[in-house]
């Protein structure tokens, strides 16, 4: 078997986010979260519900990045209006991206600068406030840098632990993990990010240097490697075209 790549380590880590999730809708934004959800569905979480990203639930998903019209088996109809009902009902678990994220997991994808006149308009808050108010939310960061992991985000889209604790009504707030190209992070009892594991080949110093706030990674164990079954599924079934290597460089070896 060829060498295991960093992208494949990330895929398995993403899949682990849905372990034990039960019969919920897996929502993903980005390539690695999509691979992770499919991998989870084929291994530890067979009850997971997947969509084609368009208007259908898929019991057998179409090829990565394609819609139901391009293959797969439809098992339900889920137009956008139904998605918001499912979000409100809580039977969903989301892994989104983050343009900025702070130590408490406040996430920003909306804009950089002042909201009245941004220096850079990004994608907007999208569904992040609703996701974090209603069900478990994880984040995927393809490039772990100090520009992403900041002291203070410019706009709070996804709500972090500090704000959630101070806001009445957020009883379903549930932040899970933040998976990056360097490490798996989760939250301590104080609501702050901590390093759960470092990907093979990554040092604590590397994570420290690439994070814009104090984050102690010393003593963190190594992120697990995907096993032979998972590697075969990633390479042959879930992502045969190798889209994962575009999001996490192949040059980064484990």
């Amino acid at each position, binding site marked *: 078997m060829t060498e295991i790549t960093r992208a494949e380590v990330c895929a398995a880590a993403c899949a682990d986010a849905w372990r034990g999730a039960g019969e919920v809708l897996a929502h993903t934004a980005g390539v690695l979260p999509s691979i992770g959800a499919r991998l989870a569905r084929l291994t530890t979480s067979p009850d997971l519900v997947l969509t084609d990203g*368009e*208007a*259908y639930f898929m019991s057998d998903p179409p090829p990565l990045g394609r819609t*139901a019209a391009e293959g797969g088996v439809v098992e339900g109809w889920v*137009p*956008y*209006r139904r998605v*918001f009902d499912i*979000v*409100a009902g809580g039977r969903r678990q989301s892994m989104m991206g983050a343009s900025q994220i702070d130590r408490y997991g406040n996430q920003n994808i*909306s*804009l950089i600068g002042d*909201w*009245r*006149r*941004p*220096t*850079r*308009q*990004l*994608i*907007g*808050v*999208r*569904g*992040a*406030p*609703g996701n*974090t*108010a*209603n069900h478990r939310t994880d984040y995927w960061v393809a490039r772990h840098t100090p520009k992403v992991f900041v002291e203070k985000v410019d*706009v*709070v*889209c*996804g*709500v972090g632990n500090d*704000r*959630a604790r*101070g*806001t*009445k*009504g*957020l*009883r*379903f*707030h549930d932040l899970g993990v933040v998976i990056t190209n360097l490490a798996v992070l989760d939250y301590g009892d104080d609501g702050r990010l901590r390093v759960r594991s470092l990907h093979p080949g990554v040092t604590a110093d590397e994570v420290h240097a690439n994070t814009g706030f104090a984050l102690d990674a010393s003593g963190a164990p190594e992120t697990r490697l995907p096993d032979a079954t998972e590697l075969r599924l990633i390479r042959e079934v879930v992502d045969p075209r190798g889209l994962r290597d575009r999001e996490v460089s192949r040059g980064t070896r484990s």
Partner: protein
Amino acid sequence: MGDKSMSLEDFAGTVESGMTIGIGGWGSRRKPMALVRQLLRAGVRDLTVVTFGGPDVGLLCAAGRVRKLVYGFVSLDSIALDPHFRSVREQGGVETAEYDEGMFVTGLRAAASRLSFLPTRAGLGSDVLTMNPDLVTIASPYADEEYVAMKALRLDVALVHVNRADRAGNAQYLGPDPYFDDLFAMAADRCYVSTERIVAPEDLLAAGPAQSLLISRLFVNGVIETPRGAHFTSCDPDYGRDEAFQAHYASAARDADAWRLFRKTFLDGDEQAYHQAVAEFHVNREGQEEGR
């Protein structure tokens, strides 16, 4: 049943400057683009535009017709951001109300039900409340809970595009997703439906089941037949998004000179001239590809 069919020109006369207009579709999908283009020709301004935005927002902003944008997002789908939207935001050129997508739908539902607000969890603790200081939270009268009181997004006029309609205003979608077009229709004082084809009522069910009859004539004031009227956004299954043209639009939108040329080529004439120019764009493009 009354005949509500009308021309694009007559439609344009029904929209006045300063109005709040809701635009159906989602991103770069099934947008009533022919109606938007007609608004550009008609010269209405100071609009408040309420939408899950795509190039409808870009075109109206580029022409300086928008005073306030109320949106769940603005995206061209295959291109993450509309360059006109990005540029107008970064210049501080338009007032905005950005909502979480679910909050936006809640606002439409409230308006459609003639309520001034509806409660939702979405937005609690987030900066959506900071960016919209008029939004307040409300205590549940039944439990020790707090919700966002999402304001009704009531509209003067709603514009939507569908695959088929009859002259009375019964409107049918044939694609995979209704988006929120029926909610837009019900949240508005008046609704105008553009359609690929006007058919007889008895022919509506020829193309799809009764469940595809998305909007009842109860909520429709005018029907405008505009073949390829969603172009360059998608109108499945009649046609997909014109990706080549959308890419051309986005690249022109990033440069002032290129945009002037785009406007002159595609937007300065009537709707027929638009489609003629688009056809020529594709002929020239294919010619260039063959010559390569």
